[in-house]
Structure formats: C-alpha cells, structure tokens
C-alpha cells in the first residue's frame, strides 16, 4: 500500500507528459490540415491501391530489404562521412 502514492504520482506525471505530446501532435496535424485542406473529390486519385500493394513474397522481401539497406546506408554515411554523433 505504501507504494500507491508513488504509483499515482508516476501515473499523473506520465499522463501529463502524454497530453503534452498529444497536444504537440495535434498542433502539427492541424497546421498540415490547414495547409493542404480537406480531401476533395476533384483531386481524387483513381487507382486500386489495395490491389496495387497486394503482398507477394518476392516483392515484399525485395522492398523490405531495399528500405532496410537505404536506412543502413544513411546511418553509415552519417556516421562515417558526416561525423554525425552526440
């Protein structure tokens, strides 16, 4: 029972921090929405994206490996050539 106030304080602190993050996220989302505007039928993109991205083993693994390689390349280049570090 003695740990309860500590837990409640931790919970309140975590909730307050989560609210700050959610508010920041809401502000960013609001600005983007104001800039781009609501989706409009006049700008509709007509392609079946569900069919286009129907998963296949070869395509899927190829894309996953490619993206992982690109990310690894950026990390490597940042550290090795751009000397990015804390």
């Amino acid at each position, binding site marked *: 029972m003695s740990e309860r106030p500590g837990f409640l304080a931790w919970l309140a602190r*975590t909730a307050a*921090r*989560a609210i700050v*993050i*959610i508010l*920041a*996220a809401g502000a*960013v*989302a609001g600005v*983007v*929405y104001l800039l*781009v*505007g609501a*989706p*409009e*039928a006049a*700008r*509709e*993109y*007509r392609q079946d*994206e*569900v069919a*286009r*991205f*129907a*998963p*296949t083993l070869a*395509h*899927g*693994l*190829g*894309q*996953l490996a490619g*993206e*992982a390689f*690109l*990310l690894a*390349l*950026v*990390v490597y*280049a*940042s*550290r090795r050539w*751009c000397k*990015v*570090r*804390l």
Partner: protein
Amino acid sequence: MSRLALVVDVVLLAVVLSLFSPRATGLPLHEWIGLGLFGIILVHLLLSWAWIATSTRRIFAPGHRRTRINLALNWLLFVLVLVEVVSGVMISRVALPAFGVATVEDGTWRALHNQTLNWTLLVLGVHIAMNWQALIRGVQRYFWSGARASE
C-alpha cells in the same frame, strides 16, 4: 538507456521498416500498423522525456550546439512522422472505412504521403546515427553480455 527503452526502440524500428514496405504487408496491414505507430512513438517519447526536458531547457544556453541540432532534428522527425500518419489517415482505404468513416483518395494528400516518406527515411537515418553509441551500449549491456554470461 533502460532495457524497456531499448526494446521499444527495436520494436519501433521494425514497425517503421514494415511501414516502409507496403508490398510486404499489403495495404490493409500497412494502414492498421500505421495507426498503431503513434502509440509506439508516444511510449518512445515518454521514455525519452528526461532527455527532451533537459535539452529543451538548454536550448538557449551557450555551448550546447550539438544539443540544439539534435533537438531540432528530433522535432523535424516528429513533424515528418506526423505528416506521414495524418496524410495516411486522410487517404485511408481500409482502416477508416472499417470505422464507418468515408474517405476520399485525394491525390494531393497521397503525393504528400509519398514524398514525405523519403525525407522521413533520411532524417530517421541521421537520428539513428546520432544515437548509435547509446543503442550499441544498450545492446551490449542487456543482450550481448547476458547472452555471453549464459554460455
């Protein structure tokens, strides 16, 4: 870095890589994982709160150039990921309609979703590079040394 923070980071990386590869997951799973991404990022940020608070306090203090650059980079990544999530929600074809929300597949939001992806990958790579030492130390401390000790 705590063990929980390291596990969350590894899960986050795996989730982001799967989101970068919709041909591996298919569009429905891509959208559901994308909706869940914000929750994982929230946990990631909460676990990094001490660093965020300290860095924000130091932002105008002299002699903290690297801290300022890192904080700006993290903010940029936060904004980019949010743009990805928001634009993904706007052009959702599976997840939002499943909740009964009708969506319009807007070409502008789609272009924003696709183009932001490239910048997100770039900034994410720099973010990982910047925190590389902490990641490696965490892996060595919690996984590598533990695995060697149990041999």
